[in-house]
């Protein structure tokens, strides 16, 4: 940093190293940022050293010392914790579930949001469109615990609304919470349902920000509705679309924990292989007596993969279209 060329104002002389140019202003700004700086160091950076846990066989040491002491004095495990996780029965299942669900979520949510925004923007009754938007926004503000109550009201086998409808039409009751085959659809539906309003309004905001004279010019030149959408509307929402896509790719190894855990009723055994993801696996491991090193290995693997995918997605975007990369 010492010989960084500076174009800053404030009468700095680029010949001097930065600590000699340090002013009273900098001290004040540093003090102002100190609480947040400490927050980042504690809650964002300290956990990054959690990587050490994954390489240790954590054991409580004699003498009632604190966690860090115990950790540092535990044996090294090499990659033992990782190989345990990679060779466990769950690993491929977790990897498959996490990635496939996320891919389905990304594709479906993005299409619904963009499609919905295009439809909303072209509606004639603006008042009505506002009312629909507000109503569709509601699920976004519900926690998954509350949503799990909604789902319970619909699906609980004996009393639920859906089985009520099925039986009144002469069908057989379905034991929803024990039938894995329905859950991929239920989860994808709920994920779309919860995020739909937000996505549509987000894209709609960038559509309404388009300069209307562009459409006027297009109409003058005889462009059809379809051509207008293709050449004006879609390019205008591209930056937001790509930003959302990169962010979503960064989350491809993560899962919305509440969706998988709460809505399924804490993952009953019958649904275990259908709805488990890395997050539910790690959460259950934290709550259980599983060795902390193995859990840390799973957790760390997930973090590394997330980092890799977000950088990769950004790299792909920067190759295709350098304007829109986010990093």
């Amino acid at each position, binding site marked *: 940093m010492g010989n960084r060329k500076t174009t800053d104002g404030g009468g700095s002389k680029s010949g001097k190293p930065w600590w000699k140019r340090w002013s009273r202003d900098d001290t*004040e700004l540093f003090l102002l940022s100190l609480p947040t700086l400490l*927050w980042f160091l504690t809650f964002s950076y*300290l*956990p990054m050293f*959690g990587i050490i846990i994954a390489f240790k066989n954590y054991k409580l040491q004699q003498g009632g010392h604190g966690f860090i002491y115990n950790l540092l004095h535990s044996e090294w495990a090499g990659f033992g914790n990782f190989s345990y996780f990679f060779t466990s029965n769950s690993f491929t299942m977790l990897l498959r579930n996490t990635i496939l669900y996320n891919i389905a979520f990304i594709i479906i949510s993005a299409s619904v949001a963009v499609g919905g925004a295009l*439809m909303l923007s072209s509606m004639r009754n603006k008042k009505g469109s506002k009312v629909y938007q507000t109503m569709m926004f509601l699920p976004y503000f*519900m926690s998954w615990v509350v949503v799990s109550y909604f789902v319970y009201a619909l699906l609980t086998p004996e009393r639920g*609304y859906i089985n*009520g409808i099925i039986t009144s039409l002469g069908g057989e009751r379905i034991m929803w919470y024990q039938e894995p085959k329905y859950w991929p659809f239920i989860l994808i539906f709920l994920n779309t349902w919860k995020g739909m309003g937000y996505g549509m309004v987000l894209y709609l905001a960038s559509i309404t920000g388009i300069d209307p*004279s562009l459409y006027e010019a297009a109409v003058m030149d005889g462009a059809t509705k379809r051509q207008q959408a293709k050449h004006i509307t879609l390019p205008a929402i591209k930056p937001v679309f790509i930003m959302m896509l990169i962010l979503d790719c960064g989350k491809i190894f993560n899962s919305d924990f509440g969706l998988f855990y709460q809505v399924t009723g804490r993952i009953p055994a019958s649904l275990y292989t259908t709805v488990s993801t890395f997050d539910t696996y790690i959460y259950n491991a934290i709550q259980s007596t599983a060795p902390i090193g193995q859990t840390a290995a799973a957790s760390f693997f997930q973090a590394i993969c997330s980092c890799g995918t977000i950088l990769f997605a950004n790299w792909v975007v920067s190759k295709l279209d350098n304007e829109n990369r986010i990093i």
Partner: protein
Amino acid sequence: MAKEESGQSLNQIKQSTNIVFNIVFLILAVMCVIPLLFVFSISITDEEALRVSGYQLIPAQFSGSAYKFLWNERGMILRAAFMSVLVTILGTIIAIALDTSMGYVVSRRNFKLKKLYTWLIFIPMVFNGGMLASYVVVNNILGLSNTIWALILPLACSSFSVTICRTFFRTTVPDSIIESAKIDGAGQFRIWSQIVMPISKPVIATIGMFAAFGYWNDWFQASLYIQDKNLQTLQSLLNNIQKNIEYIANNPYGGLSLQQYKASMPTESVRMAIAIVIIVPIACTYPFFQKYFISGLTIGSVKE
């Protein structure tokens, strides 16, 4: 305005398509709202009627007993509601202070550590230590379990909201105001608290809303760190009831006779009534706030 309208009218569709769109959105909108109605109607149905005929949209037999039960148990509900409100208010204030102060500092072009800070804020966006490491930090190293701080601090700040603040300050607060305040002898803390904050209400509202809804809806932190019944929020109360019911369902006769179990568990209508208690404050307020959630993302996505 006139220009905008002409643009809109050019972009309009045929009447028949408009009707189709209206029907589609009507269905979607109803789908988003109707679960609330389901839950509400269960909460006002008589427990015996639920047992006989299952859930029905229009209750076979009305009963206010669930709400009466909540009223009798208001000690528990009010305590949880108080915790929810306390965590939400305290957390939101702390979040606003942390986000805007850092956002302001990194928005200052002359700050010598600006580059370092920009990286410091950026790295957590792409990499984090994972759920377990965060748990270890809060639980084992800081020892915050079973304190209100375990609910507040881990959610108090984020790279995302700091970036929103930074972008806002950089694009809307003119340097000249800050320079002239400096000439008048104001320190940076005073400039931030008395000059920048009062003219930054939109961004404060945006990040404040994100924080407030995040805290109000949080059950995850509580489920990891809070065992103390006195510290449970409404969300964790709801979560714990469901957890206990599922535990008993999965471990029949786990030390309890069926009679005891029935007596100790809130009835279904009571559980749904608690859900309603959580939903109503949000459902009544979100229409006024939803625009801030969108402006957050649109501000945040503006690049320099």
